[in-house]
């Protein structure tokens, strides 16, 4: 039981506590630490890429290693850094924003995290066992099916396991948002971050199964001799591309939408205004999610689908600019007439607008199918997606972390250092990626281990590399800030930013039951509504009573560990069937844990009224 363990002190007890926790706030921290770690790993890989491309004909990395580097950089950044960091924010914030005590499935929440964790570890183990995957993050067949060694097998198993975790997390958030809202929290009163979490989770629900199937087919081809992508036996390599992008395009909106939500909350808080055009914002979010499923083939314009398909997908893709534009203008007009406070969180958000707009506009340029015959697979595309991903997702994560850090850890990240980290990162970002558009048009394809001298590409690449170093400096300052804040900054109260939404109505960090009494929501921006009525906090919707909480459990960890072990078994049974033992052991652990879970009743425990009253005296009630 988590409460019992927490009372025991000591390092091991803390570890045990985190291994067994089902508390969404602690799971948020786990996501933050692992995602943050993988961001650094992906960042170091990016730096190695940029060093290799610093000058023509460079041989800092070997050709094979370079391909491993880009593959792992892309895969790590997308699946193991950006997504978990987003989940960190969602877990930390969404239940609080809707006035819930926890998520709908605390146990599954923990399972989702551990699956992601072990999937990510499995993927990265490949560095030490003779070579990482090297067929690009898109892993196109037949390069991937014929890639020697076990690199691609790690890709398949790692993503399959962490993908299962993601799917679970998505379902969890969907149900949480549908079922767990506090009284009065209607759909049209939900903060935009919650809304975008909802839409994102729906995208996960419908997009990830396509990846799952793709990975299964890839696994069968590589490990069990099937012929899906083997043209000699009638297979077809385009199938992988479709499956990958049916997943892959929604995935990029899975990445950006939650941060659109975070920006909405931040702009509104630091402009002291309610979000301009709230219902249009909700509508635009849903519409982006919806359209996101109809455009995947814009990644395949040069595959040869023919002019009809290309035209349809081109026009459908362009349509997404409309709801996104609605968002951009609504943010601008949220600030219009407001009282803008330039905190570090706001700084990142403000910087996001021009950066993302450029990225979105190059996206629309890419969507012009005929023109994409020139852009495709060149640095123009690399420029586009780093503008939206770094300028949108990474900026958003920095902004969101600055904004919600006090809620997660009870301390505001040092503002001075925050701004100091911003500037080199911001400048470095534009230096690195703006020039890449031109490099692409001047004839530099992407995924190029070397570019040749005398093609006019030298200066551009050098500038790009310099920019990357500035980003690294920015990142390091941000890390320093975290350490500095942990030791030097004072504790803050529940509502350091003069917030508007429910999460600011409870202490920072919140007690593990979040709300001693479930609040009554009386409008959009519920806390602001109460403040305007001259009240200090939320009005409770229920009398103080016992609170039902779920029990911690080691089973999610065990299930995921089993999958991890089985993963190795699957990878190496090609070499020797004795590895099948690992499959059996691993699956045994997983299935055994599942059986334990379903046969053993687990009804949770209650926190008693007296305990709550004690907490409230100490300040937990407000």
């Amino acid at each position, binding site marked *: 039981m988590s409460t019992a363990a927490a009372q025991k002190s000591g390092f091991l007890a803390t570890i045990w506590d985190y291994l067994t926790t089902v508390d969404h706030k602690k799971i948020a921290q786990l996501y933050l630490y692992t995602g943050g770690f993988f961001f650094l790993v992906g960042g170091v890989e990016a730096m190695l890429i940029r060093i290799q491309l610093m000058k023509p004909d460079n041989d800092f990395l070997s050709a094979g290693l370079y391909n491993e580097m880009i593959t792992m950089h892309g895969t790590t950044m997308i699946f193991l850094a950006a997504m978990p960091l987003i989940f960190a924010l969602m877990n930390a914030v969404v239940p609080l924003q809707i006035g819930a005590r926890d998520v709908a499935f605390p146990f599954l929440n923990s399972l989702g995290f551990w699956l992601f964790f072990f999937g990510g570890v499995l993927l990265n183990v490949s560095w030490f066992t003779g070579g990482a995957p090297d067929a690009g993050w898109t892993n196109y067949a037949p390069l991937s099916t014929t890639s020697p060694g076990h690199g691609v097998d790690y890709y398949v198993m790692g993503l399959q396991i962490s993908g299962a975790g993601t799917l679970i997390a998505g379902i969890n958030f*969907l149900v949480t948002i*549908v079922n767990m809202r506090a009284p009065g929290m209607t759909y049209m009163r939900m903060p935009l971050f919650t809304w975008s979490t909802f839409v994102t989770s*729906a995208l996960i*629900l*419908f997009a990830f199964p*396509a990846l799952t199937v793709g990975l299964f087919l890839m696994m069968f081809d590589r490990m069990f001799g099937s012929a899906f992508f083997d043209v000699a036996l009638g297979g*077809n390599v*385009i*199938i992988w591309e*479709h499956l990958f992008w*049916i997943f892959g395009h929604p995935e990029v909106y899975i990445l950006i939408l939650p941060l659109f939500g975070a920006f909405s909350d931040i702009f509104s808080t630091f402009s002291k205004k309610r979000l301009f055009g709230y219902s249009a914002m909700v509508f635009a979010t849903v519409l982006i999610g919806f359209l996101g*499923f*109809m455009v995947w*083939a814009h990644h395949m314009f040069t595959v*040869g*689908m*023919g002019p009809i*398909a290309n035209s349809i997908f081109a026009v459908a893709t362009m349509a997404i600019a409309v709801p996104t534009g609605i968002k951009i203008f609504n943010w601008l007009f949220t600030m219009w007439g407001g009282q803008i406070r330039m905190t570090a969180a706001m700084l990142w958000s403000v910087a996001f607008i021009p950066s993302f707009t450029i990225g979105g506009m190059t996206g629309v340029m890419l969507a012009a199918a005929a023109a994409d015959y020139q852009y495709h697979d060149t640095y123009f595309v690399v420029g586009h997606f780093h503008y939206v991903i770094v300028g949108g997702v990474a900026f958003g994560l920095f902004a969101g972390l600055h904004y919600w850090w006090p809620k997660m850890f009870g301390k505001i990240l040092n503002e001075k250092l925050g701004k100091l980290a911003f500037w080199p990162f911001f400048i470095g970002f534009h230096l690195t990626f703006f020039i890449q558009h031109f490099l692409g048009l001047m004839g530099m394809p992407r995924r190029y281990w070397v570019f040749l001298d005398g093609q006019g590409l030298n200066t551009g690449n050098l500038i790009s590399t310099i920019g990357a170093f500035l980003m690294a400096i920015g990142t390091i300052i941000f890390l320093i800030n975290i350490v500095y804040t942990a030791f030097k900054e004072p504790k803050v109260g529940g509502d350091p930013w003069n917030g508007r939404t429910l999460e600011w109505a409870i202490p920072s960090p919140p007690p593990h039951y979040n709300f001693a009494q479930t609040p009554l929501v009386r409008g959009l921006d519920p806390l602001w509504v109460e403040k305007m009525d001259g009240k200090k906090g939320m009005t409770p919707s229920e009398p103080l009573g016992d609170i039902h909480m779920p029990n911690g459990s080691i089973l999610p960890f065990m299930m995921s560990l089993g999958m991890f072990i089985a993963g190795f078994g699957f990878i190496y049974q090609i070499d020797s069937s004795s590895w099948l033992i690992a499959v059996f052991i691993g699956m045994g652990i997983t299935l055994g844990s599942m059986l334990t879970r379903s046969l053993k009743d687990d009804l949770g425990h209650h926190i008693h009224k007296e305990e709550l009253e004690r907490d409230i005296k100490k300040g937990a009630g407000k």
Partner: protein
Amino acid sequence: MSNAKPAHQHEYERKQHREEMKHQVISFVMMIIFTFVAFGMVMFEVNSFFIIPTLILLAVVQVAFQLYYFMHMKNKGHDMPALMMYGGAAVALLTIITFTTLIWW
């Protein structure tokens, strides 16, 4: 199991359940009939231009019976399930269309 509900309400619920069960049995019979028709058409080689669309239509109707009657999607409190099933079906449809038109050329 002891049951402390007022007798009339108890009766009422049971009647409702019986009513529902009747619908379900009817839908089962329909499903069986559809299946017979589908297999019959193929086994007795009813060769017609429409045979494939007809087969698919029969399947879709049959599945609708499963979802709405057997799985109770017609009952209230199923808005969200319906939304998500239709969402899934829409993506499914796009996927199938793609795989039947854009894979070989």
